[in-house]
């Protein structure tokens, strides 16, 4: 009998544990020549805000050793455009749709969640709390446990849909934030978002990115991401979505053994749009070879 890749994530039933990392797969349409959205266990969309965001000036991208920096600045066309353009497209594929939400204030997060909860095509939310927080004092929402809990709690009030909170790795102790948002009503945690980094053009004598600082992703960050998944798994009961540098089935399995219920692929898509397919096939092969019937047998097994 062939092994099962199916997993449950909060109330979401996924046929496989492979998801696109928010912001690397747009709203699904762009990769269509290579990936049908229903290949994924669920689609996680690019961040959606209450109103359109312009994003940062270019250059927005710099390559680094086994990684890349991005400073897109969460450019997005806003929730209304998302409803009229992206949702009808995704509806066709009958795949769970998790909408990643960004906001400049707690109220904005809640407003987007409330607006989208009316739409049956939306299966859940992922809160990107790594945006710089303007109203609440200029700190990022995701680095202060109280603020992170507050965002989670406010969104919790306006929706019954599964609520995933995406954790920032730029913190002293990720488990503190994880526990705070668990207590505030999150159903699932995803991690990691990008690590803050910089690259300098020595000829031009200035940072490569117009925004100076950007978010590091790709294989370079995998050890940090794995460590954080492993640590958070010990401290919370919630299911975890692991991500950060996955470019092979073996990478994905590392995250699952660290404790992830599902994993997301971001930067890896850019170098190989057929990666999700390969990762799914590779996990299946591993389960067969190692005589594992389903993923729960190995989830968190590296905890010892």
């Amino acid at each position: 009998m062939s092994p099962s890749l199916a997993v449950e994530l909060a109330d979401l039933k996924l046929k496989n544990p492979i998801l696109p990392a928010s912001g690397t797969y747009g709203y699904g349409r762009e990769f269509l020549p290579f990936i049908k959205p229903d290949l994924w266990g669920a689609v996680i969309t690019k961040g959606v805000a209450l109103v359109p965001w312009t994003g940062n000036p270019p250059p927005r991208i710099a390559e680094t050793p086994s990684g890349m920096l991005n400073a897109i600045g969460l450019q997005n066309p806003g929730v209304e455009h998302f409803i009229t353009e992206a949702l009808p497209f995704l509806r066709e594929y009958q795949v769970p749709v998790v909408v990643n939400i960004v906001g400049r204030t707690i109220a904005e997060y809640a407003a987007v969640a409330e607006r989208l909860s009316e739409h049956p095509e939306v299966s859940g939310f992922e809160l990107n709390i790594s945006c710089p927080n303007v109203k609440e004092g200029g700190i990022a929402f995701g680095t202060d446990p109280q603020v992170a809990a507050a965002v989670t709690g406010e969104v919790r009030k306006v929706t019954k849909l599964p609520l995933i909170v995406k954790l920032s790795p730029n913190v002293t102790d990720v488990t503190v934030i994880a526990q705070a948002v668990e207590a505030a009503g999150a159903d699932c945690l995803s991690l990691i978002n990008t690590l803050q980094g910089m690259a300098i053009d020595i000829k031009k004598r200035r940072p490569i990115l117009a925004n100076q600082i950007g978010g590091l992703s790709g294989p370079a960050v995998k050890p940090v991401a794995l460590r954080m998944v492993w640590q958070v798994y010990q401290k919370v009961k919630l299911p975890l979505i692991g991500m950060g540098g996955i470019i092979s089935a073996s990478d994905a399995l590392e995250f699952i053994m660290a404790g992830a219920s599902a994993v997301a692929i971001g930067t890896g898509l850019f170098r190989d749009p057929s990666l999700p397919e390969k990762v799914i096939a590779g996990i299946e092969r591993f389960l067969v070879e190692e005589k594992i019937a389903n993923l729960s047998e190995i989830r968190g097994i590296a905890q010892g």
Partner: protein
Amino acid sequence: MYQVKAVITENKFLGAGYHLLNLLVAEIPEAAKPGQFVQVRVTTEGNEPLLSRPISIYRYDAASSSLALVFKVVGKGTDLLAKRNPGEIIELLGPLGNGFAIPETAKRVALIAGGVGMPPLYCLAEKLIRKGSKTEFNLFYGARTKSDLLELSAWERLKVKIFPMTDDGSYGKAGLVTESFQKEHEQTPFDFVVACGPQPMLKAVQQIALATNIPGQLSMEAHMACGVGACLGCVCKTKSGYQRVCVEGPVFEISEVLWE
């Protein structure tokens, strides 16, 4: 848009760090248009370089499944590509981007190439001329020095009028390519201009075009990650806001482009 493996049939050193890469590849030559590009995975070994490299399509021929690229070694990605041997396989994503669109009414077109901006312009001229276009093409081709002027014999075979320019005067006239374009344009006005090259050149071309009120197109460059429009990493500033060079571009209407 395809993800395909390509066999290197030739990796010809053109001198001064330039290479002509001839590839045997399915799908892409059938779908390609002049002005489009491909994302090239320069190596199959390891993680590095992580990202693919965007390279313009220089020539393509569906009948022979052939695709040609011209590139310059400027960093580690192009350096690795320069070292690949015939018979080796590389992976491509393409064709990507929108491509040029020259109005049928254009009678006299200026093609303005700076350095390694030449390949897509050749692609454009070749396809139109082979299709029997009556348009008169003039190539203004600027580079630092003689060895940076590539494939002049191919251009000559197209019977395009060439205005070569080098910074050091080692071939053609000394000076900026935009100067010779401007002079020619003043004498016998062009009714369309297409430019690809470094940003200062594009800016100067835009200025002349706007000042003399002729339409045209610019092919833009940007650091890219996905190449397919998903990551929003490659935008350039336009009158309609930030636009993706890999989807809405690389070719933009000359009047649309703004600069940071």
